[in-house]
């Protein structure tokens, strides 16, 4: 997976931390969720519902919907959503399981509770 380029020099000045699949990710104020994920090397954000193929941000202008993932409990476009402290991000889209450790259609949130993926 690609590394952060160029290095996030002003990361230390950032006071925002989001959680991605339960793990902490420091972000810069004003960053979009997609921007923060891409800079941290999270290129794959969800899988497509029909072919179960890996997908990530594509157009970055809100048109393609490829980065529509679970943000604070609802499906939102990561490229159009600004990060806020304590934001809960899950790398899963509507109607299918997520990426990384989640291969089934249910995912376990940080509290250990099993949640249904998809639009809530």
């Amino acid at each position, binding site marked *: 997976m*690609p590394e952060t380029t160029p290095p996030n020099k002003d990361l230390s000045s950032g006071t925002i931390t989001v959680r991605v699949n339960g793990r902490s990710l420091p972000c810069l104020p*004003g960053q979009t969720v997609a921007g923060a994920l891409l800079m941290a090397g999270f290129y794959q954000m969800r899988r497509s519902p029909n072919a179960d193929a890996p997908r990530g941000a594509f*157009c970055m202008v809100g048109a393609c919907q490829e980065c529509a993932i679970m943000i604070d409990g609802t499906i939102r476009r990561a490229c159009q959503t600004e990060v806020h402290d304590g934001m809960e991000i899950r790398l899963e889209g509507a109607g299918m399981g997520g990426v990384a450790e989640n291969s089934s259609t249910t995912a376990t949130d940080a509290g250990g509770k099993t949640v249904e993926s998809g639009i809530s």
Partner: protein
Amino acid sequence: MTEFADLLVLGAGPAGAEAALAADHAGLRVVLLDEAPAAGGQVWRAPRTHAARTRSDADQTRGRDLRGRLDASGVQVRTGTQVWDAVPGFCLSCVSERGATRFQAPRLVLATGATERVRPFAGWTTPGVFGLAAATAMMKAEGRLAGRNIIVAGQGPLLIAVAAKACAMGVPPRAIVDLNGRGDWLSAVSGFAAAPGLLLTGLKWMARIVAARVPILHGADIVRALGDDTLDAVIVRDRASGQETRLAADTLYVGNGLTPADEIHRLLGAAQVADALRGGYRTLCDADRRSSVPGLYVAGDGAGVHGAFPSAAQGRIAGLAAAHDHGALSAADFARASRHARGQLKRLMRFADASCRLMQFPEDSLQDIRGDTVICRCEDVTVDQIRAASGDGACDLNQLKHFTRLGMGPCQGRMCALNAAGVLRRLAVDAGRDLRLTPRAPVRPVEMAQLIGTFAYSDIPVPKPAPL
């Protein structure tokens, strides 16, 4: 809740902002709507992070100037507002953080801008493949560019702009894969000379690319992206010899020009004409930017791709025309106030034509796409499935949608419709047929919860039952 105005302007890029400012100056009550968090459009997009704010370039300065002028004006700017329906009259239905809202005015300027086109290739859905405009969005808004080993590909001035800006950010691309040949660029120079300032900017970009020793592969395109979960490499094909080369990359930015974002033009029934140079279809209008629908004006790339500066001039003319038609501006004042913009527009036309020619989508190359290539990204519909549907009798885009679900996903056909039309047109479809999806509300995906909002059951009007 409905907000009333004399004029609604949809889209706060160069065209819409200038239209709103001109009409406001003439004394109209103007509401300017945009889905972005700040005015500026794609080209003069507002920075969101400290890193982006501290970068200075001409587009950044122009955007700041535009937002400053809007702040100082009487224009009611409603950013973060998505329009999902429009009816003549004109009433726009929107959603924003404030919930569902409506705006109504007797006149409407559509300045909705353009959407990027990307020619599909095998593996173009692999994470790490982005549109070329995605690179500019990242750099302008966040002051960052994703990727370490990047390749930029496609065509037109944006290709060179992205490559040069990537160099300036310390991430020189491993290669530039340019669909156009050197000859195409040379024949554009005389058109570019119509705007010497912009030509100079382009030459500076080229100098930066040359200084960074970025190889430029002319007359070549991407035929395949490789990688399981994320991008590992791309296959580049020389269009003349057919020779294929593998280039390692973790990130690809690729774009093949622009197409008007004209859903609302079509929803309102504005007359259009096919115009490949302007990105597909152009909305017909008179010299004052009046469309075929009374009270509806069109400006900027949404009505036919011209680029930022001609768009701004068109916007100013449209705003003044609306003020004149509203009775706020005499014919003489209208002529005087619009003279400069009309001159600019005329002067910049050769520049716009030269840019558009370099950006013109390679329709013919759609027939070489591998059968397993995904066309509809949302529903994973492939070229083979389109061909099969055509064989089964699907002969327009609506039928193709019924046969395959192409265009039924959340992007609503924005990424696939024109590419699918290009594939279908080569399968014995008569040339004159309109191969577009019927425009329908909602023109943006909206959440039911946002539309419904909070309401009391007693507010719901219940009609009297019919007598038995």
